[in-house]
């Protein structure tokens, strides 16, 4: 735990040059601060998607993340959440690029990995509405079979739209635009055709 806490403080120190007090709310929650943050992974295994990690070790990583989020009541946890969100967005974008290049049939492993990571991050998003809804929408895309019909144009749009959140900061305004673009381009379709009852 001490190791994690130290790493989190060092993460926040890189955020803003004027940030001498890590507990100061205004220095933590500005998107510009988060923009300047380097992606400093807590654990190498998290950063490299294809690295083999035993399930037990991965569960331990998740459990530690959850404890950090839930035990922190100050703005440090918001920043840590932005870091995790940024990480997952970049991972999903990498997988999408692979999918776009290789085609759907050659990318089933990547799709599975995306779903797993989204489920993992979803477990500690309960108190953060915008992040929660973003992950929910991403999960919806992969939870019916419509993703199988996506063409390279749509995958490209999906990839580009995720850039709105690549800093890890999820604003309501960007979330709305994201939702609207996914609707316009049919990347996210929430309904399936059902036969009308007589």
């Amino acid at each position, binding site marked *: 735990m001490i190791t994690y806490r130290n790493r989190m403080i060092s993460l926040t120190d890189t955020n803003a040059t004027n940030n001498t007090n890590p507990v100061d709310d205004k220095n933590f929650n500005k998107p510009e601060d988060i923009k300047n943050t380097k992606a400093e992974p807590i654990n190498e295994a998290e950063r490299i998607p294809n690295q083999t990690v035993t399930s037990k070790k991965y569960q331990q990583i998740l459990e530690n993340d959850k404890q950090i989020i839930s035990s922190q009541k100050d703005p440090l946890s918001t920043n840590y959440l932005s870091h995790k969100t940024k990480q997952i967005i970049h991972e999903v974008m990498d997988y999408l690029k692979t999918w776009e290049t290789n085609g759907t049939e050659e990318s089933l492993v990547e799709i599975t990995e995306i779903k797993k990571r989204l489920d993992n991050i979803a477990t500690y*998003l309960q108190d953060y509405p915008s992040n929660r809804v973003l992950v929910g929408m991403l999960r919806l895309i992969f939870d019916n079979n419509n993703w199988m019909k996506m063409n390279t144009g749509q995958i490209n749009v999906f990839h580009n739209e995720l850039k709105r959140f690549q800093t890890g900061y999820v604003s309501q305004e960007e979330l709305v635009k994201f939702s609207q673009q996914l609707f316009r381009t*049919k990347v996210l379709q929430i309904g399936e055709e059902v036969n009308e009852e007589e």
Partner: protein
Amino acid sequence: MKKSKKSKIKKLKYLVDTSIQITRFRQPYLEKELTKLSQSNLIYTSYYVFYEFKAGIIKNLIDYYLIVKNSTDIASAFSYWSDRFRPRELKNKLILDSIMANLYEKMELKNKDIYLIQVESVIFHLLKNFLTNITGIIGDFSDNEILKFNIDKSEYYEDFQRAVKANSFIKLEPFLKSKITEIQTLANNDTFKNDKKLEKLYQCIKEISLDLSKANTHNVSKSIGDAIITLDCPLSHTLVTTDHSFEVLCTCLSKPYMRISKDAPVLTEATS
């Protein structure tokens, strides 16, 4: 040398009703048709349509969310929710069925928290795309409490339920006072009177034509939604719908309408 005047192409104005707003989420072809239409025309919807959307589909999904949240078991929560579905919400049932088919498929495999996040995202997505590809929203009822209620996140759902309960129907007398001539026209129209499918709607209109205050009662207010949308639609706008009722209502009032078939991928009728 005289410059030739370029003739201005006047954009036609359309108003989409609740059936279109609901069906476009379920049928991608319809959204495609609307997008085509919007390229050289102006597509509007009305505040009353938004009210029906929010107090109908959205409220149903929120009810479902809260039932699942308060249950230990997703499957039995779904069963309980399906059983209490009221017949008059049939219009909403098709889109809800399609959304549920999508969400339910993986239900047993899902962690309840993840499942709830997805339901919340569906509600968010529907709300935020109500006006996507729509030029604007017009008409009376912009002041309605349900419309003004923010439900951007699940933390507000219970309050929204209470607000809907407290404002379970709209008192329509103030709106209808300025439409009394049109009400009388509808009430005196034989085609409307003799249409078996619209019997209940006609009876309500007849009651209102004799006593306007009847429009302030729950049963009447909830039954005349299609008539309100028609009355609220300006003459300059062509009402777009999938419903038969508007064919009759618009014809009675000499208002232009366009009926899109739910099954065929083209615009089937246009009258003026």
